[in-house]
C-alpha cells in the first residue's frame, strides 16, 4: 500500500523557548506565555494570526485555554494532550491534520514544565509514595517506578544480545556535552569524557548518573502553518517531509510483555515516516534522537536504520554523531546537557540548523554566518544541513518521528 503523505505542504515557521533553569521561580503559565510569544514573533506573526493551540503535559502544566487568552489569541481549535517525550512530533502531525481539515490555519504547540522545581520525573518524596493501584501493581511494588527503572530491562537485554557496552553508549553523553559547550543556553556546558560517564555513580544498572538526562524548568513552542502561508513569513520556511506519531509496540503499557524487548518503537515507525518523506536514512544530515538516557539515542538510531540492528553501540562511538562527524545528533546538547523539555527543544534545534541560524556565539549567527569551528565555546552550525530527522522517545514501546527539510 502506498504511503499517504502531506510532504512539503506544511511548515514550521516559528520557534521559541524560555531559559533552561533549575528553579524558574514562576508558573508554567508564565513560561508558556513567554515561549509562545517568542515563537509568534520569530515567525513574524501577530497574535490574531494564530488560531490553533496544542500542548502536552502530565498533570504538571497549564492548559491552552489559559495560555491563549493571556496573549490575546482567540482559538478556533485547541487540545490539551497527556504526554511526555514523543509528543512533539505527533502534535506537529495533528496540527497539520487540524489545518488540513479546515478547523484552523496556524497552530502553536507548546510544552511548559517546572521539571526541576515542581514535578520531577518519576516523582520524589510524597509523590513517589502515592497509592499503587490498577496496572501499576505489575511494576511499582517491586521498586520499579522511575523512567530509568522502567527502561533498564531493554538496555540490559540489548547489552546481553548484542554485546553493547557502557563505554560505547557513554559516547552519546560525550558528543552531546561537546555540542552543549557551544550552546550558550545549555545548563551543563562542561565537556565530559567516557571515563567521566562510566565512573559516575550507578543509578540503576546498567545506567550511571551521567547516562541520565537533566531535569530543568523550561517552556518551548513551535508554530505550524501551511506552506502557502509560510512563504510570506519572516523566517525561511522549514518543510515537514514526513511525520509518525506515537507508533507503538504490541503493548504500550508493558513494553516487556511482548516481542523482543531490545526492539523499540522505531522498528514500526521507520516505514511510515521514511515512506512519507521518500528518503532513506543516509539522506539525513542531522539527527535529533531523544536522549532521556544515552541508551535511548543509540536504540533509536539503530532501529530507524542509521546502522544495522545491534550495531548502535559501534555507531554512536564512531564519531559520526559528533559535530564535525558525518551525521551529528542533538547539536544543542539535548536533554543530557542542554535541558529537559520532553523533546521539543530537539525539534527547535533542527529548525535552526535548517535555517542556518543556530544560536551559537558566532558573530553573524543570526544572519546565518558561521565559522564551523567546533572547538569549545565556538560554532555548532552544521554546514549545509538540508534534511534533519527527529526521533522522539516516550518509552521503549512508543516513539514518534519527524523529517524536515529547508
Amino acid at each position, binding site marked *: 500500500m502506498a504511503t499517504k503523505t502531506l510532504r512539503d505542504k506544511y511548515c514550521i515557521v516559528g520557534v521559541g523557548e524560555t531559559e533552561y533553569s533549575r528553579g524558574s521561580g514562576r508558573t508554567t503559565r508564565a513560561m508558556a506565555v513567554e515561549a509562545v510569544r517568542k515563537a509568534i514573533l520569530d515567525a513574524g506573526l501577530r497574535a490574531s494570526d494564530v488560531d490553533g493551540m496544542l500542548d502536552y503535559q502530565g498533570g504538571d502544566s497549564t492548559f491552552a485555554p489559559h495560555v491563549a487568552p493571556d496573549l490575546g489569541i482567540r482559538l478556533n481549535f485547541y487540545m490539551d494532550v497527556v504526554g511526555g517525550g514523543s509528543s512533539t512530533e505527533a502534535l506537529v502531525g495533528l496540527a497539520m491534520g487540524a489545518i488540513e481539515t479546515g478547523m484552523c490555519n496556524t497552530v502553536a504547540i507548546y510544552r511548559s514544565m517546572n521539571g526541576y522545581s515542581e514535578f520531577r520525573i518519576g516523582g520524589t518524596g510524597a509523590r513517589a509514595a502515592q497509592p499503587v493501584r490498577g496496572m501499576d501493581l505489575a511494576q511499582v*511494588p517491586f521498586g520499579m*517506578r522511575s523512567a530509568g527503572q522502567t527502561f533498564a530491562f531493554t538496555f540490559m537485554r540489548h547489552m*546481553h544480545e548484542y554485546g553493547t557496552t557502557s563505554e560505547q553508549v557513554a559516547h552519546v553523553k560525550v558528543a552531546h556535552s561537546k555540542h552543549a559547550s557551544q550552546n550558550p543556553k545549555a545548563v551543563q556546558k562542561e565537556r565530559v569524557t567516557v571515563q567521566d560517564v562510566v565512573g559516575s555513580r550507578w543509578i540503576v*544498572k546498567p545506567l550511571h548518573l551521567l547516562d541520565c538526562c537533566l531535569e530543568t524548568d523550561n517552556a518551548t513552542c513551535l508554530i505550524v502553518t501551511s506552506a502557502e502561508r509560510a512563504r510570506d513569513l519572516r523566517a525561511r520556511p522549514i518543510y515537514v517531509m514526513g511525520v509518525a506519531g506515537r507508533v507503538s509496540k504490541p503493548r504500550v503499557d508493558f513494553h516487556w510483555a511482548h516481542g523482543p*524487548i531490545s526492539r523499540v518503537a522505531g522498528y514500526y515507525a521507520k516505514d511510515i515516516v521514511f515512506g512519507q518523506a521518500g528518503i532513506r536514512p543516509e539522506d539525513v544530515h542531522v539527527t535529533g534522537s531523544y536522549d532521556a538516557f544515552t541508551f535511548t539515542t543509540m536504540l533509536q538510531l539503530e532501529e530507524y536504520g542509521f546502522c544495522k540492528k545491534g550495531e548502535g553501540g559501534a555507531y554512536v562511538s564512531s564519531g559520526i554523531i559528533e559535530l564535525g562527524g558525518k551525521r551529528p545528533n542533538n547539536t544543542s546538547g539535548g536533554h543530557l546537557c542542554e535541558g529537559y523539555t520532553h523533546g521539543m527543544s530537539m525539534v527547535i534545534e533542527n529548525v535552526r540548523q535548517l535555517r542556518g541560524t543556530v544560536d551559537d556565539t558566532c558573530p553573524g549567527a543570526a544572519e546565518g554566518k558561521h565559522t564551523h569551528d567546533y572547538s569549545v565555546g565556538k560554532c555548532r552550525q552544521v554546514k549545509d544541513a538540508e534534511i534533519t530527522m527527529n526521533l522522539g522517545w516516550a518509552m521503549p514501546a512508543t516513539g514518534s518521528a519527524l523529517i524536515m527539510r529547508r
Partner: protein
Amino acid sequence: MPQPVTYRGMALIVPDNDSEWKEYFAHARQHRLMLRACKACGLMRYPPTHACPWCMDLGWTWKEVSGRGTIYSYEVVHHAIQPGFKDATPYGVVLVELDEQRGQPTADEGLRIIGNLVKPDGVSFEDDTQVAIGKRVRVVFQDLAEHMALVQFALSDEAPPGHVWRLPE
C-alpha cells in the same frame, strides 16, 4: 476486602471491583501462580486482562503454572526513588520468562513477569551480585495480608539451560 495493604511504605489498593488483579493476588495468597488462559485459543497471558491479545476473545479461565522460569532481563537499583526502598539498595528487579508457552504464538513471545530476586524466604532481597540473565528461578510468595501476596522469584538449584550473563563490573 480490607484496604489498603501497606508494603514498604506504599498503599497497595486492590478494591473489590478490580476485575484484573483481585483474584490474581488472592490466588497468590494461596501460594498458587494462576494466569488467565483464553477459552477460545487456549493461550495464556500476563498481566491478567479481559481480552485475549491473540484472538480478542473475552472468555478466560484461571490456569495454574509451575512458577519456574529463566531470567530474561534484569536491573539493579542503586538510587531508589520510592522511600520504602531506600534501605534496600542495591536491589535486583528481574523479568522472568516462564517455562510455559515459551516461543508461542511466535518465536519472540513468552509469559514474562516482573518481580524482585529474593531469598528463599520470599521476603529479603537476594544479594545483587547473584542477579544474571539466564539463571533459573522459581516462584515464591510474599504474604502481605489475608487476601494478598506478592509474586516474587528466588534462585533455583537447576542448572541454567544456556549462557549466564551479567553486566561486567
